[in-house]
């Protein structure tokens, strides 16, 4: 048995496949995960005692989800698996952990970062009202808790999740009043050549939409969210389409604009970041094998760029092979190359997806000064614009002066939108307003601390 300490952070598809690949070569890693059970967000398992079959939870992806769950279960006895554990800080050779209010440190020789993604959000008036959730949240409510975020519900925004969640809700018996797709029909035509690289994914998307239409769900394309209204909770939603405003009563809204990578851990580790026009975000640099700019740190899955669950599985396995290679353990080179080719193909498909679900670039110009931008610190768009006009065109400087992104969530929810506002107000390109620096703790730490583990 090798005495090298390999640690994997994140037990989604990337982390689980990475662990499996290591174990197969006799290397037992530590697998740390914030979740209660393995699977990540995409293949999140329902709690013990729930009874719906995988098909009901994951649809077309049921067998993939099952495979990850079974794999994780098999691994649990062979590795040091630590669920419900937060990595709150990281240094060159140590991770700082928090589990059940207890602090612990864990050394590592090699580290695979597979921290996944959360929804990318662009605020809209009323987005802090009870009943407004991200598309990912809407899906978790159903998948993990058997609940709808409300009834009737409207889904809005862009991204592959939009039609999928609407379909899952309608199938589960919720009243879906409308799907408001930010992308227009012409966007989707432009995207077709890229999407055709992965016909099955394209087919699924078309299937969901066709099913929704066939089942009487109103689907609007080129529809931009304008406002969510309500006194103490959602009462209606307004959108604009071809210059005309429409509105519908509803009790919940699910919306987001595709996904954004959770990069805080890579940031605290000191990984080099590069601008990704495709993701419209700063991402930790990784090569085709998943090696980062740091010798002992490897990146896999959506945490280093959004490519989806299938790619995450491949990237997890590939990164683990890289770890093994770097430890001097012989691996199947042909397998490694095949994975890299597969990942490259998905990346090209991703290009198509970006065209199909274009980022709403006009958002910042339209955002009203009164719009709540940072829901933690309750900072409005106008407050950010004020400091930008006073010269703070760097996102970290703007944060220091007006508190945007300074709250509990560390800018996860507002950071991307804040960059858009700064770029729009200053006239700079989005990649030249700086990168919101991560600060420990990655998530809040409690004062009520137990004895050190």
């Amino acid at each position, binding site marked *: 048995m090798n005495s090298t300490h390999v640690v994997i952070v994140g037990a989604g598809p990337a982390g689980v496949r990475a662990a499996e690949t290591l174990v197969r070569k006799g290397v037992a890693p530590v697998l740390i995960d914030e979740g209660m059970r393995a699977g990540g967000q995409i293949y999140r398992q329902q709690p013990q005692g729930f009874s719906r079959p995988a098909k009901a939870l994951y649809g077309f992806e049921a067998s993939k989800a099952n495979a990850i769950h079974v794999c994780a279960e098999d691994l649990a006895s062979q590795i040091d698996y630590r669920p419900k554990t937060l990595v709150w*800080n990281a*240094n060159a050779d140590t991770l*700082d952990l928090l589990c059940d209010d207890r*602090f612990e*440190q864990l050394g590592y020789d090699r580290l695979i970062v597979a921290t996944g993604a959360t929804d990318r959000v662009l605020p809209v008036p009323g987005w802090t009202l009870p009943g407004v959730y991200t598309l990912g949240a809407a899906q978790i409510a159903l998948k993990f808790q058997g609940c709808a975020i409300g009834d009737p519900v409207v889904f809005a925004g862009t991204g592959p999740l939009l039609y999928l969640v609407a379909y899952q809700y309608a199938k589960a018996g919720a009243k879906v009043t409308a799907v408001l797709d930010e992308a227009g029909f012409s966007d989707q035509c432009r995207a077709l050549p890229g999407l055709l690289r992965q016909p099955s994914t394209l087919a699924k998307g078309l299937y969901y939409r066709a099913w929704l239409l066939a089942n009487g769900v109103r689907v609007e394309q080129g529809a931009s969210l304008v406002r969510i209204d309500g006194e103490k909770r959602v009462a209606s939603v307004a959108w604009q389409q071809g210059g005309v405003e429409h509105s519908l009563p509803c009790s919940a809204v699910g919306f987001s604009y595709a996904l954004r990578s959770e990069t805080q851990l890579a940031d605290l580790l*000191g990984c080099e970041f590069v601008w990704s026009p495709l993701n419209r975000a700063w991402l930790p640099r990784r090569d085709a094998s998943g090696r980062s700019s740091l010798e002992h740190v490897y990146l896999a899955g959506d945490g280093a760029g959004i490519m989806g669950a299938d790619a995450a599985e491949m990237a997890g396995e590939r990164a683990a092979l890289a770890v093994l290679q770097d430890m001097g353990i012989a691996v199947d080179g042909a397998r490694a190359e095949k994975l890299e080719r597969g990942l490259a193909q998905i990346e090209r498909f991703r290009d198509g997806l970006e065209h199909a679900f274009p980022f709403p670039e006009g958002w910042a110009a339209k955002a009203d000064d009164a719009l709540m931008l940072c829901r933690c610190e309750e900072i409005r768009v106008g407050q950010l614009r004020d400091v930008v006009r*006073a010269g703070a065109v*760097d996102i970290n*400087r703007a944060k*220091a*002066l007006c508190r945007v992104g*300074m*709250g*509990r969530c*560390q800018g996860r929810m507002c950071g991307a939108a804040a960059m858009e506002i700064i770029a729009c107000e200053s006239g700079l390109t989005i990649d030249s307003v700086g990168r919101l620096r991560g*600060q*420990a*703790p990655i998530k*809040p*730490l*409690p*004062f*009520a*601390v137990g004895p*050190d583990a």
Partner: protein
Amino acid sequence: MSALVETDVVIIGGGIVGASAALFLRRRGMEVALIERDYCGSRSSGVNFGGVRRQGRPLIQLPLAQRAHAIWNDLPGHIGIDGELVRSGHLKLARSDEDMRSLERYEAETRGFDMGLELLGEDDIRRRYPWVGKSAVGASLCPADGHANPRLISPAFAVAAKRLGAHVYEQTPVVRVEDAGDDFLVTAGDGLRFRAPWLLNCAGAWAAGLALQYGEPVPMRAGHPAMLVTEPLPVFMTCSTGVEGGGIYARQVARGNCVIGGGQGFALDDRRARVDQQAVVTLLRQATTLFPSLHGAHVIRTWSGTEGYLPDRQPVIGFSRMRRGLVHGFGFAGGGFQIGPAVGDVLAELVCEGASRTPIEPFSIQRFQHVAA
């Protein structure tokens, strides 16, 4: 292409000392170029604890602290914002009888400085500050001390200087300092060059290099105070608080966040510092003992900075002994925020009048001359 800026005074370092020097030099009619490698007030001046505190300073610093106190009293008049300054009072807690005796001695020694220190017994603390934990057996209160937001105030000094006509160069690292006759020739990034008969060394933890260049080595080391902040909490901490003997200090801002400091972080590199788990866990423990209301609260950010410390923990302020026109103002050992504006004023005074009306002899760089030998 190299532009040459000819000016009266070049200031290296846009922290609170350099920026306030720029402001007070402009008030005295001098032409000023303020050069900052990053953004003004973004290093230690902007990320320190934010204590606006005279209490606890050594006697030799109190004349400067009193001079600063007057500047702080008219902060909006100087920089146009209040910077969240609160005269909350500064409460220094004693956790043993010996600590209390030390506070009593300090009160006796500092009566001439008009701080109005008030000594409090255990009953006084329970009655007036019920949020203080049982480990405190006594305290000394300085009613007119307080706290403020360094993130806002330190940059605002540079903005105020700029408004008065100072030329402020941010994200402009100094590459080289040379002599040009009696003048200094300063070369900075982007090919900028500056020429002036006066050079102020306000480069904080990075100031020793320039002093050394002029034959005045100082044994400065970098320190990294550990700091954290809680989520917004109901307001309970009515004073800025420290403890005799050090170790932990805390304040609560109007928005409800508690800022808590104590112990040391570590350097990531020459410029960046961070807090490690040991320091955080220690701070969490100490803070819950001292302030039981923190039970159940969460820390949402931690940070550190890079501060210059000399062995006697006193700054270097005053003329260079080796080079005419060079004036030092650095090495504040983590305590420069409150006295910073007064030091800036003193540096301006030295340039314009040749002497400071506030005694600064104890801070002369000459005290390290044996280092050169």
